[in-house]
């Protein structure tokens, strides 16, 4: 064991985003506690957005800083803290940006549209987003199973509370309980798998695990399978991959809509971050090709199942949140595809594929949920028929929603389309045609799902008269999401170029 290494002030600089979030969280908690009850808690929401923005600024700063450092010496492009238990690199940095941005938009969209009647604990509701985002950030930045686990639980426990935030509604509590039990069991599975991984390799540092696994396969073939399958199962539950997905619809339905979109985007993204870290650093190094192939095959199968079940399930769903939950199942299946593709000399861009689609997915989902929030707020109806005649009531919102839906459906020219296209190109480059076929087929079937919204919005006449009132922050975030979705479709170059400029498998996944 190396010499005792403690945190230093220079490390604090690397941890600045995390520290910012923690400080904001604590400060806002105190503020909420001591301020009179009758004050509207919206300003806490604004402060939450501020905190997220500040953290994001730090992340960007760090990314740029390290990129500059990395140009001379690639090994300076990342930074290990405390013997690798925490790792500041471009993988984490990019994902943190996604998480912070997504959380920011979610809070923004919820400002003005979340009512105290629904969410009595409005203060908590806003500032608990901070520790949740913190958990997600930790998950994307960990180099150690323990840190990963703690980050995961920080995120999970916070979201358990957030899901239950509609205290007056029985379904919110039910959803929270279901989420808690599922999440707890999933954690147990992940942990159980991790414990075997630790047992086999004698370390919890994922880089060292990778090194050790190379030789371990001789003696522990079955245990390696068990370890990874248990973790896969746990992550599949967290990610809601079929057949581990059934909780998602219930929980999404019961949770307050902003939390639903947080679950759909940030929680999912963070679980992906963790999965990518673990698989890229450990499973990839299993020396037995058959075993290695099987581990990835397990993910592929789950991905396929998720795409099929998610899409088909959404076909028959009328409740929009459940529908989007199932769409999230299918999208999780898609997001996992890049990971399952082999790295070959012609295909190394799995991270760009993943993160690009994740960004697109984040925008389109947040946008869709934001629209749902305002629509449901107007009609009190969270089913598809709540969208009936939306075009007549709010043509621009309907148009924006149409763009988001096209993106979800993967129709050109949107971020969702290009994201899927890159992933597809990856599958084709690595000759995994069956997965490509399933991706395409389910995408097409999903047209029927997403266009059922369009049918409602444009082809039915709703019962409600008059316009739709859209609070400014919600409208803002909807339009930012729509604009971003379109921009990602038309001009993906800046984003992709940036990712490509920053990210390198060699240094951001593997190098210690």
């Amino acid at each position, binding site marked *: 064991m190396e010499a*005792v*290494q*403690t*945190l230093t002030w220079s490390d604090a600089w690397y*941890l600045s985003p995390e520290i910012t979030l*923690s400080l904001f*969280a*604590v400060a806002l*908690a105190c503020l909420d506690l001591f301020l009179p009850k009758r004050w509207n808690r919206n300003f806490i929401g604004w402060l939450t957005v501020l905190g997220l923005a500040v953290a994001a600024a730090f992340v960007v700063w760090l990314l740029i800083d390290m990129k500059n450092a990395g140009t001379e010496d690639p090994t300076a492009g990342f930074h290990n*803290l*405390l*013997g690798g*238990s*925490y790792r500041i690199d471009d993988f984490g940095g990019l994902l943190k940006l996604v998480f912070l941005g997504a959380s920011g938009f979610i809070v923004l969209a919820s400002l003005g549209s979340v009512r*105290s*009647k629904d969410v*009595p*604990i409005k203060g*908590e509701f806003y500032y*608990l987003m901070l*520790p949740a985002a*913190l*958990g997600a950030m*930790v998950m994307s930045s960990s180099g*150690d199973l*323990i*840190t990963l*686990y*703690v*980050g995961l*639980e*920080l995120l999970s*426990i*916070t979201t*358990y*509370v957030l899901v*239950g935030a509609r*205290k*007056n509604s029985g379904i919110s*509590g039910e959803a*929270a309980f279901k989420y808690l039990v599922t999440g707890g069991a999933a954690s147990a599975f992940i942990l159980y798998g991790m414990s075997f991984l630790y047992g*086999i390799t004698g370390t919890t540092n994922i880089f060292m695990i990778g090194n050790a696994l190379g030789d371990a396969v*001789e*003696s*522990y*073939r*079955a*245990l390696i*399978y*068990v370890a990874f399958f248990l973790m896969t199962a746990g992550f599949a539950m967290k990610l809601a991959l079929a057949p581990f997905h059934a909780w998602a619809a219930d929980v999404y339905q019961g949770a307050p809509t902003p939390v639903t979109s947080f679950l759909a985007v940030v929680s999912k993204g963070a679980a992906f971050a963790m999965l990518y870290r673990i698989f890229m650093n450990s499973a990839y190094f299993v020396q037995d090709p058959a075993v290695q192939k099987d581990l990835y095959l397990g993910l592929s199968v789950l991905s396929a199942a998720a795409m099929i079940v998610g899409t088909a399930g959404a076909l028959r769903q009328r409740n929009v949140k459940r529908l989007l939950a199932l769409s999230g199942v299918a999208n999780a299946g898609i997001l996992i595809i890049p990971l399952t593709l082999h790295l070959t000399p012609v295909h190394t861009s799995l991270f760009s594929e993943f993160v690009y689609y994740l960004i697109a997915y984040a925008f389109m989902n947040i946008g869709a949920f934001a629209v749902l929030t305002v629509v449901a707020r107007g009609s009190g109806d969270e089913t598809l028929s709540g969208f009936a005649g939306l075009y007549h009531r709010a043509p621009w919102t309907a148009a924006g929603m149409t763009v988001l839906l096209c993106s979800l459906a993967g129709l050109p020219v949107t971020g969702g389309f290009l994201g899927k296209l890159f992933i597809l190109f990856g599958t084709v480059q690595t000759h995994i045609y069956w997965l490509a076929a399933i991706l395409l087929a389910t995408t097409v079937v999903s047209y029927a799902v997403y266009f059922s919204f369009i049918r409602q919005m444009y082809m039915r006449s709703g019962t409600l008269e008059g316009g739709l009132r859209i609070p400014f922050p919600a409208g803002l975030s909807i339009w930012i999401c729509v604009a971003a979705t379109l921009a990602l479709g038309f001009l993906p170059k800046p984003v992709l170029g940036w990712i490509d400029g920053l990210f390198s498998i060699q240094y951001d996944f593997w190098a210690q």
Partner: protein
Amino acid sequence: MSFNIDWTGEFIAFFALAVCAIVGAVMALNFTKVVHMALSLAFTFVSLAGLYVVLDAEFVAFVQVLLYVGAVTILMIFGIMMTKHQDEGQEAARPLLETLAAIGCLCLLAILIFAIRDADFPDPAGSLPADTTREIGKLLFARMAIPFELVSVLLTVAFIGAVALAKREEEPK
């Protein structure tokens, strides 16, 4: 592998405690009164603490007793009290669910045991440091500082969250 069991002291201790743990767990599933279940599980937790001692993890064992027996189980019993149970004992059977769950769990168990037996564990290449508690402390503040700090955030959040959720809201007029 064969069953040529080496009846060392450790094994005897292990065997006794393992039996206790399993019995506690199994009984917990079989009791009809919720309180009994909880207590039976507490018994399992205690047995596990004993096993930790056998495994040279005294500090962990201590924490186990403190946390599980002292906190979690009590918390659960509080929970049981707060949610007033009058309906235990009349659980309608769900045979299909139970059968399938049993089959599933047994399959999983079989897989796990197969994997464990399939593994070829070498002799340990070293041994634990003598004073594990001190080592734990050192490590917690050095390499594990970040998760440690995070756990503090986590506990705060859990605390706030639990309070926020459990406290009764005054009805909005």
